[in-house]
């Protein structure tokens, strides 16, 4: 049987961003994969060390678009740890609201892309139309459809009035019915199931070995979610389920993301209801002393870690972040061998890759 090498990328229609795969193929079956990154490396970690700690809030928000809120959020948490700043409780709830809104938009985007990849374009357009509800919410509450600019050191830069809270919950209500229908479709539709079930399987032991995170890990029944394991912001006040699936395939990862949207809606509703009155940020510009700290959060794609080291100046000595996709790429070495050529796009899409994040 013919053996040959198939290159994918760096620019290809199945990729949202540039990355380069070299696949060893025998007939129609993939035997091995080699990944090369670096096409959108912007040296952002270096850039953060050329700017002051306050400017970096804006810069880190631009690492990525879909999980943009988590970057300044986690960065601020690390600074707050160094300076021992107590964040007002209302701000902690508002941080959760911003984060979960971004999670809904991001997970819906991936669900849409998955249906597009398998050729179910009517559902793709339907999902993207539903997603517009949450995009409008972002635009109305934060003034922007992608970068929310919600975080500052010691709190948040926005507040929710009673009217805005009502607007938010009303729009979330609009999401519920179509979302339930989409989840039902993903669970029952023959086309979706044929193209995703048993495809790109990542067994639980391999998921643990490769250190994968987020819905990729939870789709392989790894019960790890930073919001549960290392609660931060107001997550310890809120009741939500940790979603897992057991089959470890493309279908499982898609279901985890969709079911997590249901949890996100519930989290926001609870947050709006339980949020106490009070300040949202310090009334002074915090000074950050010399020190170092690690902070973690659960971005839509999984665990995000920030390591910040400061000295006596306002220019940080080192800022390092590890994005979830960085850990998930290598798991393609397990998911791809044995799969058919036609399954490659759907497997790559199922790890919800963020290449801008990976390369920084």
């Amino acid at each position, binding site marked *: *049987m*013919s053996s*040959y*090498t*198939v*290159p*994918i990328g760096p620019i*290809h*229609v*199945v990729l949202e961003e540039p990355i*380069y795969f*070299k696949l060893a*193929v025998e*007939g*129609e079956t993939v035997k091995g994969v080699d990944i*090369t*990154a*670096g*096409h959108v*490396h912007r040296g952002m970690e270096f850039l953060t060390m050329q700017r002051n700690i306050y400017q970096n809030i804006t810069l880190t928000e631009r690492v990525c678009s879909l999980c943009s809120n988590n970057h300044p959020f986690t960065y601020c948490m690390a600074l707050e*740890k160094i300076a021992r700043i107590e964040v007002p409780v209302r701000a902690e709830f508002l941080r959760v609201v911003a984060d979960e809104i971004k999670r809904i938009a991001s997970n819906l985007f991936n669900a849409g892309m998955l249906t597009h990849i398998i050729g179910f374009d009517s559902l793709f357009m339907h999902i993207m139309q539903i997603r517009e509800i949450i995009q409008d919410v972002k635009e109305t509450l934060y003034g922007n459809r992608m970068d929310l600019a919600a975080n500052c050191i010691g709190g948040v830069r926005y507040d929710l009035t009673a009217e805005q809270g009502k607007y938010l919950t009303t729009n979330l209500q609009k999401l519920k019915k179509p979302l339930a229908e989409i989840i039902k479709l993903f669970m029952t539709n023959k086309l979706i199931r044929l193209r995703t079930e048993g495809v790109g399987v990542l067994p639980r032991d391999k998921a*643990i*070995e*490769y*250190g994968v995170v987020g819905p990729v890990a939870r789709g392989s029944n790894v019960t*790890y979610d930073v919001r549960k*394991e*290392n*609660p*931060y912001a107001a*997550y*310890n006040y809120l009741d939500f389920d940790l979603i897992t699936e057991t089959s470890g395939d493309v279908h499982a990862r898609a279901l985890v993301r969709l079911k997590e949207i249901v949890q996100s809606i519930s989290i926001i509703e609870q947050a709006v209801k339980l949020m106490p009155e009070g300040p949202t940020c310090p009334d002074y510009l915090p000074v950050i002393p010399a020190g170092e700290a*690690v902070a*973690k959060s659960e971005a839509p794609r999984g*665990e995000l*870690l920030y*390591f910040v*080291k400061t*000295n006596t100046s306002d220019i940080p*000595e*080192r800022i*390092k972040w*590890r994005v979830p996709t*960085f*850990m998930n*790429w*290598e798991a393609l070495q397990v998911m791809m061998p044995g799969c058919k*050529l*036609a399954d*490659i796009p759907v497997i790559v899409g199922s790890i919800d890759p963020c290449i801008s994040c990976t*390369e920084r």
Partner: protein
Amino acid sequence: MIWEEDTKKAIWGHCFLPDPEMIHQVALLVAAFRGRVITITPYLHGEEDTPKKLSIAYHFDIRGVTITSTIALQEGLHKVKSITPVLKSADWNEREMQEMYHVTVEGHPNPQRLFLDDSINLTEDTMVPLSVAMSGATSTTLWEKVMASPKEGRGKNE
């Protein structure tokens, strides 16, 4: 090791290892507890006007507990033993450190470049683009399968 519990009851630990070789023992311990590497942070530090020193902070996770173990490398000897054979999750992190901070990682099972490099080119004649492979491979492969299958049971109706 210094342990801290934050206001949300999350536990964080950090320690400084006097001997860089000790990171391998830490990795063995983490592996024994089925932990993983979250990331590895190399960083330069030191006073202005003096040569910068290189330290490496290894961030591990064991069941939700985050541990940072830091080692300091000797000046001019930017070499560490790879922990990837013990903890697979260190793979990309060590490769990135190798490229970005010129740290030699000894014993890495796959030390090839991670990020873009001149060695990557698309001119190999052996390569077939995915779009071509996906549209043309089915019929070719199907035919090859038919030809490769045992002759019994084939051609009865010919």
